[in-house]
């Protein structure tokens, strides 16, 4: 039963409730870095990394520190500070031990701090009463869904950059239209596996 539940959580986070196209979270980098496939891949790797660690740490803090002390009302302040300091820590850690990875992700890491998707996933894990395992699976599902959406979006935008678009719609407006059509197709996943 537990395994089915985990698969359900993963698929739901990946496709049915895709964080970018259905939930509207983390849109600023979605439009900001999606001009090229390469930069969108870098961004989504940074998101994957930070989202997993941030979800685990905030889950532990909430269930092992805030709840026993009855300080639930501090969760907004706690989570945002945890995420901000975690990103800094990971930056230092990567620079020291994985310089190549740091070179690839370096620019995107600070941007991840202001990505509301990270904070939202930390909240969702609390609101949905996820266990620690479910939290990790959920974070992976969301991050993979993020990657799929942003890489598809960037590849379409690379093509559209060469297309004859009406002058007034160039740049952001046409990007919003593309996002709308992609979101429409992701709506089609609704009801998959009876979720």
């Amino acid at each position, binding site marked *: 039963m537990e395994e089915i539940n985990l698969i359900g959580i993963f698929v739901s986070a990946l496709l049915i409730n895709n964080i970018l*196209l*259905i*939930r*509207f*979270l*983390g*849109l*600023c980098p979605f*439009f900001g870095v999606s001009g090229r496939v390469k930069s969108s891949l870098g961004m989504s790797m940074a998101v994957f990394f930070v989202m997993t660690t941030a979800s685990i740490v905030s889950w532990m803090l909430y269930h092992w520190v805030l709840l026993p002390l009855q300080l639930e*009302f*501090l*969760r*907004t*302040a706690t989570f*945002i*500070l945890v995420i*901000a300091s975690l990103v800094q820590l990971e930056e230092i850690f990567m620079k020291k031990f994985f310089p190549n990875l740091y070179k690839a992700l370096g620019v995107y890491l600070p941007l991840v701090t*202001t*990505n*509301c998707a990270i*904070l*939202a996933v930390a*909240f*969702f894990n609390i*609101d949905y009463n996820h266990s620690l395992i479910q939290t990790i699976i959920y974070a992976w599902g969301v991050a993979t869904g993020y990657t799929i959406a942003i890489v598809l979006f960037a590849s379409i935008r690379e093509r559209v950059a060469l297309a004859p678009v009406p*002058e*007034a*719609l*160039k740049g*952001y*407006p*046409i*990007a*919003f*239209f593309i*996002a*709308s*059509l992609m*979101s*429409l197709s992701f*709506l089609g996943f609704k009801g998959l596996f009876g979720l």
Partner: protein
Amino acid sequence: MIRWNEFTKGIVKENPVLILMLGLCPLLAVSSTAINGLGMGIAAMFVLVGSNIVVSLLRKFIPDGVRIPVFIIIISTFVTVTDYLMAAYYPSLHKNLGVFVPLIVVNCIILGRAEVFAYRNNIFYSVLDGIGMGLGFTVVITIIGMIRELIGNGSIFGFGNFVSYPALIMILPPGGFITIGFLMGILNWYRQKHR
């Protein structure tokens, strides 16, 4: 001599949403009806004015090196207050806005104004700036909410039935993307024509 332009600039010339492209996530996610948009706008405005006041009062005491974490603490305090006030007095609105109320804390408009304006100006102008920027956000999010609600549900602020065959897609996620795409396209077209 009062510089009234500190107040008006946020509404038109430096509109945080349409010109500066900040705060996109709540803009798209909660604008499915006019009343949700208005509620979100007012909540964000309250946080913005509150954090502007406190940042401006404390600007001589905040050390330059740690100002961003201090801003985040101040903002998250006001966000928590708003969250609990709304849950107590407007429970149905609070339920509709969901996770987006605590997510005001990562709204770039608020941190941006604290950094760019309130940290460098006195309290009076900071309040004016906060109200102006807050109004700019509220107006845009309410207008988008009205358009989506009118086409998608046939009503305005939950009243009336003006459209006989409402297009449900407009209150679903794709409608949000396409509405803002059209708004920006129209704005671009207007600017190119009147240059």
